[in-house]
């Protein structure tokens, strides 16, 4: 974005709304700042992570988008690229990492696995999509998405950031979205603590005998 444009709201502002000009202009400044330095978390899960690394390397060079600074710690990261298969064993760690990321934070589900479980969806240790736990901003289909497809997803994320407004983003508002996501627990299977009533209703009802587990 041209720095000149930052000061212009870019649309006609009705007289009675003049007092919000400051905030709309601030939005643009704020969005411009964020979209140009989205630092991803250095975090790979599976095959897709290799394409993510390739995206970062010489040929595709994420530095052109200000995204090359992969942070190994979630405390400095803005974007979590969930690159690979999310397993039940791993998901507590992922949720914890997400909770540790400072706002504003975004999640990009890279590849079929992160989006909905992918080819391994039927597996007993696979979470059917990270969106069961985290709010996903952009989905990039593909198995694995080529580096160019990933960049395409990142550009889409930038577009999304461009449209955001400080007044509306969920992390500055009160509500269920602004609290940390409870970390799931590993029991006989993955227990999402938000769903305990459902699980209880299911397991304790007599009709719940589904299969013959050994």
């Amino acid at each position, binding site marked *: 974005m041209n720095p000149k444009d930052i000061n212009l709201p870019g649309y006609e502002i009705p007289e009675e709304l003049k007092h919000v000009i400051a905030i709309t202009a601030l939005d643009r400044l704020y969005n411009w700042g964020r979209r140009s330095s989205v630092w991803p978390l*250095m*975090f*790979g*899960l*599976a*095959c897709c*992570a*290799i*394409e993510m*690394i*390739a995206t970062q*390397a*010489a*040929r595709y060079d994420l530095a052109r988008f200000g995204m090359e600074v992969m942070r*190994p710690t979630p405390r400095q990261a803005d974007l979590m690229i969930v690159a*690979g*298969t999310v*397993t*039940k*064993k*791993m998901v507590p*760690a992922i949720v914890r990492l997400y909770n540790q990321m400072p706002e504003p934070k975004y999640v990009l589900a890279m590849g079929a696995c992160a989006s*909905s*479980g992918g*080819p*391994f*969806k*039927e*597996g*007993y*240790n*696979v*979470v*059917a999509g990270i969106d*069961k736990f985290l709010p996903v901003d952009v989905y990039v289909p593909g*198995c*694995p998405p*080529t580096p160019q497809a990933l960049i395409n997803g990142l550009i889409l994320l930038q577009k999304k950031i461009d449209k955001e407004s400080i007044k509306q983003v969920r992390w500055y508002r009160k509500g269920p979205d602004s609290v940390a996501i409870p970390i799931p*627990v*590993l*029991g*006989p*299977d*993955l*227990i*999402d603590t938000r*769903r*305990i009533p*459902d*699980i*209880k209703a*299911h*397991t*304790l009802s007599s009709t*719940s005998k*589904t*299969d*013959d*587990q*050994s």
Partner: protein
Amino acid sequence: MIAPDSTTTIDLVARFPSVVTPDTRPGYSGWIVDPAHLTEVATAIRNEFSYDLLSSVTGVDYYPDKMEVVYHAYRTTGGPALVFKVQIPRHNPVVPSVTPIWKGAELQEREAWDLLGIRFEGHPDLRRIFMWEGFAGHPLRKDWKEPFYEEDVKPFKSRWPEGKHLPAEMRTPLQDNLFFPPGFDPEAFSFQDPDQAAYEALRRQHRPTDEDGIQTDVIIINMGPQHPSTHGVFRAAVMLDGETIIGLKPIVGYLHRNHEKIGERNTFLQNMPYTDRLDYFNSMSNNFGYALAVEKLMGIPVAERAEYIRVIMAELSRIQNHLVWFGMMLNDLGAMYTPALYAFEERELILDIFEATAGSRMMCNYFRFGGVARDVSEDTLRKIHDLVHDRLPRKIDEMDRLLTENEVLVSRLKGIGYLSAEDAIRTSMTGPMLRASGVPYDIRRADPYSIYDRFEFDVACHPEGDMYARYQVRMDEVRESIKIIKQALKQIPQGPIMSVKPSYQIKVPPGEAYGRVEAPKGELGFYIVSNGQPNPWRYHVRAPSLINLTSLEMMCIGEKIADFVAILGAVDIVLGELDR
């Protein structure tokens, strides 16, 4: 049917009458050993018959009556396998552990316990490995069904002709990939850290004392699963005395994608693209191993031209694997990015070739039973020719100049992470790790498969057993691979690329087969049991990344924590294959 190759040299029955019987099931080979005498027989196999390398331990569930554990042992001097098995009742599967004899069985026996519930008596640390302690059930048992279970065998009937789109979630009562035993009360459930057992095992096995015999204080730290240099989601619990490592347990399974369970539902062909996702750097090698195993079972030849294409692709993939390894290794040592960026440039050029022939950069899905999926165009062959005759040698020399003599690198690698040849064999190390300990064991030479006997190349081998040797072995291997590709390019004939008609319905006669290749990371084996159905009854992957971790603790003890990252990097693990 291929003759049982393992029975040619020795006669176990003569040595152990009434304890060993030959396996006479049609399509099977090897020996069946009485479980009560397994330790005795196994000791003799190692010491008397000098089968010193136990390559794989596989549990098989012959539902409904028995379980079987299959062992493949090799001589490091070369030659075919000695296959022996024990059979145990399914309701009480207990087998004596062979870990005291071959330490390399340690992780594999844990795997068989975790996934099949076979107990190994005498195992020093029998815990679950991929799933967490407390998980309900042993998933690879045939009567265990996953929450998204639909049918025993693909294709599922719900897809056609009345295939209304219905996500798997919609079919389950909890609308998710979840199963809880009936009567389980999540509110009464008290969470226990499933990894506590790992820490306890560490404390049990290592009791550090100072000179006066007083127990000293130790700390256990966790590295991973989210750690910038554990190559994905690997985790290790490291026990430290000050900065020195005194004990270590790998904790794996964070990428356990149920490859084998899915593989047993898939038809034989459908497994091919899944093998791509094992070692996702080297889908070509994975395809190779799986194709070999199934071709062995089917007893079909491979088209001549396809053999050459296979070798070229597998070697290209080895080159790019090792190049990336240089980069990643240097990343681990702290030389962030420069070598990795250089390596990725060459990798991209090799991936271009894969993309042009197989259609995808990483997930090639290129091999078919009897050949390959499509021909290599002249244009691509010329590109390969250019690469191996011009660019790659230049770039490898450049990498050599950049790194090999670098004093910082040398001082970080030389003498660190030592593993003796004896220990390396005992822990079933394979691939560059074994050869860096001075054992010139390369399956391409020791037990040639495909057409590797037609090429001249040297087996890279360095006797020092430290990380620098591992570095040098890989550097040499890249050069040898280039040599092989050059020869293959010269000899490649014209002709068909499939020996049989391509078909998606493949008839595989009943029997078992073990196909193994020298993958860039070590011996990659596929153990497949067919019962004549369209899908394998048992589909097991002998993953070099996993088994090469057996000696990780050995290499790390006494070193500084800062070197752990490098030692792990030098093993060259990839999580897709390690956890499957």
